[in-house]
């Protein structure tokens, strides 16, 4: 690989532009493919290029069918949006980042957002309805609400339910969650939409401490992310 090729690749990864490096496994040529075009000394047939673009869309690296061409796909990292800079967020945010998620914390309370482990995590200090519009969750985004305060959680959940977010989870006991579902149903969300919310949030691992609860949430998010990935 040429240094210039590495730099071009790194620039796309930094700008979160999905792309693929296609390498001839005899070492003769290499080319970088993204939505805008193709650059490099490897010439791809129309079928090969179509397969590379399919692989980019599915975020799936591999050797192209019936060839000795390897496509390494660089997709955007999955995102996790955490509503509420509370004690569980203090551990969940750094854990999720270690697991490869791009993490954003939303909370209108600036002092919460700037405290402890969250100091170097990307944050939006605003009310969730406004902040969630900025975040615009997509199919690679998980939304986790942790405030269990309806005036913060509900607007975030409503926005998440109108988005293709692959995961929606809400902290709160079974009782809290039942009341939450009633309120959201009152806003016009049907049973199918409401069934997308994981509540009580996280896998049942008998978690007690904030760190243990964060593990259970992150594990559930990863489980859903990987199952969705396999279905494609």
């Amino acid at each position, binding site marked *: 690989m*040429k240094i210039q090729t590495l730099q071009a690749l790194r620039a796309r990864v930094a700008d979160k532009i999905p792309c693929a490096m296609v390498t001839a496994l005899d*070492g003769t040529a290499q080319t970088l493919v993204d939505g805008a075009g193709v650059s490099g000394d490897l010439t791809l047939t129309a079928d090969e290029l179509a397969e590379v673009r399919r692989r980019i869309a599915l975020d799936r690296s591999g050797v192209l069918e019936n060839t000795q061409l390897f496509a390494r796909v660089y997709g955007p990292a999955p995102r996790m949006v955490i509503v509420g800079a509370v004690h569980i967020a203090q551990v969940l945010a750094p854990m999720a980042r270690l697991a490869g998620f791009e993490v954003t914390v939303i909370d209108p309370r600036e002092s919460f957002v700037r405290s402890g482990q969250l100091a170097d995590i990307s944050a939006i200090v605003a009310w969730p309805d406004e902040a969630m519009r900025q975040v615009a969750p997509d199919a690679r985004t998980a939304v986790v609400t942790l405030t269990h305060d309806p005036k913060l959680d509900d607007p975030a959940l409503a926005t998440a339910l109108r988005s293709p977010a692959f995961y929606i989870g809400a902290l709160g006991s079974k009782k809290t969650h039942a009341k939450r579902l009633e309120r959201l149903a009152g806003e016009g969300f049907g049973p199918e939409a409401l069934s997308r919310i994981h509540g009580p949030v996280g896998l049942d691992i008998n978690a007690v401490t904030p760190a243990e609860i964060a593990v259970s949430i992150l594990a559930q998010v990863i489980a859903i992310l990987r199952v969705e990935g396999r279905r494609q």
Partner: protein
Amino acid sequence: MTTSSDPLTQLEHWIADGRHVALATVVATWGSSPRPVGSHMAITDQGDFVGSVSGGCIEGAVVDAARDAISAASPRLLEFGVSNEMAWEVGLACGGRVQVWVEPVSS
């Protein structure tokens, strides 16, 4: 020196420091293998590395191959697995098979 846990970023740091480097990438796996296709490992000609292509089973052999690739200025395709003649030394204990592409990064 700046360090990064991301192999591609680390490659650029090393290049900026004037080091000779290579990139290893898992291109195919069969059976059980600890790291998925696309996993990267950045390696210097001094044997420093960041990232992984297995669960620690073959990294040593990949570092050696990378140093050869750097000095020969040519890439190579490595294959490890139970059928490999080196299985006793650097095979995958899990019984899987893995192909690793090792390419020097040059100007």
